[in-house]
């Protein structure tokens, strides 16, 4: 059967080579949660970047898009966050923070196009690109009701539209479908947050959005008192300021009315493990970290960046004709440069040019330095069909670093997540500090290889590795 499937896909691949003759012309389309949107404004590929019409996507999930005629700026907002784009500029401002787009936004026949990846990341959408039909499938993972104004993937709470609030002086009634009514949220001052409620509660599986932990509680509402208070303050969400170094605050809102859903968002400094216990009338969320390591502005962390292979060891060949050692060094240099700008970090490289350094020598170098972290950069190779990102660790003390960096690496590449794995590679085994080996993608896979040898992607990988290093050091400190 496998053989037949393989043949069939080959067949489709061949048919795709002759689109005019054998493949009925279905124009590239854009789909949101399975439904086709934006007819007449197809996604298109420009300089290897897939560009999509931003307005129709953003509006579909409750953002407003403003373009003032005569200017070259577009503002996309949902009340919570603001994205500012400038035509022909390949950076955007997201809540005032400059982000690389990869390709510049442009206007064609009154339609504004931006890179697909950016749309996915910034609007919190899952993106699937079907290379066969050249169509883009977007999914809004936060809600099955895109009409609910649920657009705020990053902030988590996005009911700024006032739809459910009717400030009328009297107490709002508890919605009929609510099986649980949240009365109060408490913090014990250390690691435990407790949601007190009446009735029966079945929370959804929590999910992470950046370093925020989000728990949705379907068939639940906020108590009439809380709703009245929110209405009086014209606020959409209530806040509990916790203000420890690990947990900044807890926010909660009546998030959706189809069905009635309460959303609780924990604004954490870093991702961390937690445990949820549900008992009669109370849902406890216990975090493992009470405090982050004290921030010592004078502390300097030593981070060793190891560009895999080099010299007579070229590493794996790439289908693009390049070698792994070239990729590894390029990204390592970029990481080094970015780390140099951080006053708390001193970066080191095991090799800064095309020479081979022994594996034990690399580990010994980091050990002699008394380094705090060791990060080895590699790219993978197997068959042409395998694609994705893997992060390896050896010793238990490296697992957290592996998890943090892996998450950033998956984000940076947009490639399939092939998991954090344990292995006994010399550089991660013989080092005496948290150490990981990153396999950034498969050079045997055309898509992966092209990405990895694209400068802007290398920049993004380096930025995310650095973001991961900083996140880790903030949460767990040095060695």
């Amino acid at each position, binding site marked *: 059967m*496998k*053989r037949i499937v393989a043949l069939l896909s080959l*067949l489709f691949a*061949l048919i795709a080579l002759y689109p005019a003759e054998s493949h009925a012309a279905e124009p590239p389309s854009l789909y949101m949660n399975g439904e086709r949107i934006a007819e007449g404004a197809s996604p298109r590929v420009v300089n290897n970047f897939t560009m999509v019409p931003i307005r129709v996507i953003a509006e579909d999930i409750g953002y407003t898009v403003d373009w003032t005629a005569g200017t070259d700026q577009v503002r996309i907002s949902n009340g919570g966050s603001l994205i500012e784009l400038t035509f022909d500029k390949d950076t955007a401002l997201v809540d005032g923070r400059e982000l690389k787009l990869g390709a510049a936004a442009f206007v064609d026949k009154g339609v504004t196009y931006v890179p697909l990846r950016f749309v996915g990341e910034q609007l919190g959408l899952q993106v699937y690109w079907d290379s066969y039909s050249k169509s883009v499938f977007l999914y809004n993972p936060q809600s099955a009701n895109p009409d609910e104004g649920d657009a705020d993937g990053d902030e988590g709470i996005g009911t700024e539209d006032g739809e459910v609030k009717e400030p009328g002086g009297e107490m709002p009634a508890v919605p009929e479908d609510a099986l649980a009514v949240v009365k109060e949220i408490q913090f014990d001052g250390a690691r435990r947050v407790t949601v007190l409620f009446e009735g029966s509660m079945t929370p959804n599986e929590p999910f992470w959005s950046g370093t925020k932990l989000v728990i949705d509680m379907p068939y639940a509402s906020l108590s009439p008192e809380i709703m009245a208070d929110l209405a009086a303050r014209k606020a959409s969400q209530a806040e509990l300021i916790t203000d420890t170094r690990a947990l900044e605050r807890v926010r909660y809102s009546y998030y959706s009315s189809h069905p009635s859903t309460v959303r609780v968002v924990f604004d954490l400094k870093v991702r961390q493990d937690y445990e949820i216990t549900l008992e009669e009338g109370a849902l406890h969320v216990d975090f493992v970290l009470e405090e982050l390591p004290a921030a010592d502005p004078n502390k300097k962390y030593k981070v060793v960046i190891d560009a895999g292979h080099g010299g007579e060891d070229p590493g*794996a060949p790439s289908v693009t004709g390049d070698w792994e050692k070239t990729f590894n060094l390029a990204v390592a240099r970029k990481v080094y440069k970015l780390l140099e700008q951080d006053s708390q970090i001193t970066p080191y490289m095991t090799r800064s040019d095309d020479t081979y350094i022994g594996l034990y020598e690399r580990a010994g170098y980091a050990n002699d330095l008394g380094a705090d972290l060791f990060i080895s950069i590699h*790219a993978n190779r197997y068959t042409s069909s*395998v694609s994705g990102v893997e992060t*390896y660790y050896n010793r238990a003390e490296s697992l957290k670093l592996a998890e943090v960096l892996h998450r950033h690496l998956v984000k940076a590449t947009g490639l399939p997540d092939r998991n954090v794995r344990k292995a006994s590679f010399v550089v991660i085994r013989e080092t005496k500090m948290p150490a990981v*080996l990153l*396999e950034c993608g498969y050079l045997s896979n055309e898509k992966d290889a092209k990405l990895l040898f694209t400068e802007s992607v290398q920049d993004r990988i380096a930025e995310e590795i650095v973001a991961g290093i900083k996140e880790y050091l903030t949460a767990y400190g040095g060695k």
Partner: protein
Amino acid sequence: MRKMSGLTALLVAMLLIASCGKGTEPALPGNGADTNTPAAGQNDEPETKPESVTVKYYVSDEEMNSLIEKQTTIEPAEPGEVYRLAIEALKQEDEAAGEFSLWKNAIFRQVELDGGVLTVDISLPGEARLGSMGESLALEAIARSAFQFDEVEALEILVDGEQVESLMGHEELLHPIERGAYPDDLNFRTAQAMQDEP
């Protein structure tokens, strides 16, 4: 229109292959028996041959998550040749069955047993170089191939005649690899199992 006919020809060819392939799943050779049933991927053998031997070899799956043990029949012309052919068997693969060789592009320059030590001298052209997990599985595959013979007590892998620290730049290459480095009772070290938290 020219394109079209080319495509049609291809389609026909592929459908033919598809229908031929169907129902003729290659059977594993029996224990050293039937020399007339070539294993998948092998060419037809000449009629008269010395005694055939069934040996194990190891490939990986589509996702490179683990090793798969396979068997094939070899026909060593002289007693010492059994090791070379067993190592060469690592190059066999059957993509359609989801079996991929980790040694396909390597060159086995010399395979020789001397005093319990099996020395395998390898050349690694670029195409033979894998990523970290690939290297790890490749090493395990060749070690398991070598240690299937009770008389092999250690495996000495050389690259172009020399002892090197690492084959492909991630794993340590021990000199030699001792029998027991990959215990049978550990089953195959799969990448999946390696994901377990310590």
